[in-house]
């Protein structure tokens, strides 16, 4: 029964549909990672400024996303914010908004950590050479910081890709939802469908995340040596 069940993956257009769902998942992850990288750099730079108020505000922002689970944030925006403002937002939009805000906070912390880990004399030498504020960041600090933050940033991307699996809970037709639809439709012809469909989705996520985590580990080792 189990061995013939694998055919459910190739029945009709099932495989195309699953990959189509994966594309939605990948889109949400990709857009969120881009937005959170850009926002994260701004947040990180602002966190290194010696302003007590800014530091407090960003600390609070970061901790809010670290303490409250992401699924709660998704629910909060999908059900709560839309209800309060009396608007309708698609699950995809909510997912991108929540993931971007979360990613920007985490990325900001990574950028801050990288900038603060740079030896002080780098900044002082730059200043002594008479570089302007922008030149200092553009030519001295950012190129060095980027190398230090890349492993962490890639790690964060892996986490964000994994977290996209949650969007099924707010009604997005992602790879998990498509899988559920196929399982429900083929329950009579392929009773073992759930084993193969969820197995495939498991492997698909692994195929995306594994190379990323190897890359980040390699970079970390290269940087340490």
């Amino acid at each position, binding site marked *: 029964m189990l061995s013939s069940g694998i055919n459910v993956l190739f029945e009709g257009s099932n495989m195309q549909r699953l990959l189509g769902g994966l594309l939605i998942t990948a889109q949400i992850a990709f857009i969120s990672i881009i937005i959170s990288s850009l926002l994260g750099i701004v947040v990180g730079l602002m966190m290194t400024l010696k302003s007590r108020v800014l530091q407090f505000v960003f600390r609070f922002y970061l901790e809010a996303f670290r*303490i409250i689970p992401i699924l709660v944030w998704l629910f909060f925006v999908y059900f709560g914010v839309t*209800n309060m403002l009396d608007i309708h937002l698609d699950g995809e939009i909510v997912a991108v908004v929540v993931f971007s805000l979360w990613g920007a906070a985490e990325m900001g912390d990574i950028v801050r950590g990288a900038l603060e880990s740079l030896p002080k004399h780098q900044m002082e030498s730059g200043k002594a050479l008479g570089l302007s504020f922008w030149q200092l960041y553009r030519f001295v600090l950012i190129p060095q910081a980027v190398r230090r933050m890349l492993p962490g940033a890639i790690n964060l991307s892996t986490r964000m890709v994994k977290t996209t699996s*949650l969007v099924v809970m707010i009604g997005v037709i992602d790879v998990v939802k498509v899988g559920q639809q196929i399982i429900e439709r083929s329950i009579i012809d392929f009773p073992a469908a*759930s*084993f193969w469909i969820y197995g495939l989705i*498991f492997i698909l996520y692994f195929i995306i995340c*594994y190379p990323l985590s190897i890359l980040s580990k390699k970079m970390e080792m290269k940087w340490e040596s």
Partner: protein
Amino acid sequence: MSMNWEFIMSALPLYEKAAWLTLKLAFLGILASLGIGLLCSIVLYQRTKGLERLVRVYIELSRNTPLLIQLFFLYYGLTKLGITLSEQTCAIIGLAFLGGSYMAEAFRGGIESVSKSQIESGISIGLSKLQLVRYVILPQAFAVTLPSLGANCIFLLKETSIFGAIAIADLMHVTQDLIGMYYQTFETLFMLVVAYLIILLPLSLFLTWLERKVRYAEFGN
């Protein structure tokens, strides 16, 4: 927007029950993942042939896939192999499967932090490999590992929020039910956030405190 306090009071017992269930499952899952993590890290440290490769495959599989898919596979997929598990057992196994690899990494970091001279001294006074692990490495590694173990506990507690997806009446599930039945969206979400804050905020503060303590301990060395 005014709060419907009457509704909040009437829903309070539901949330209380759900919070205890979440805590119970998280506790058992974390306990199991500590055991798995410790075993895996010892296997990796001792370089037990065969087992080492198995542990590495497990760690990569567990770290690079989402818990939701792991749970769906356990709960819906494995029944087709004739293995039927209750929702709660699935949740605990899933959490332990995910957490085991994170705990293993944390323990490994601690073990690697024990200085070579400690291990060499242990060997030179004739300790067996097991004695070395038990009396020299683990006690020292433990202190260094504590903060990352704590961080993993918070991470796993947060991950429990998706248990609702396999029909466990946890905080998310209760919230979804109440929104569907009574449309008291604002109140239910408010209670959801407060419930998670009550669980996670003290833990997070404790962890920050612990981290500072351990850093002092390192300086004292």
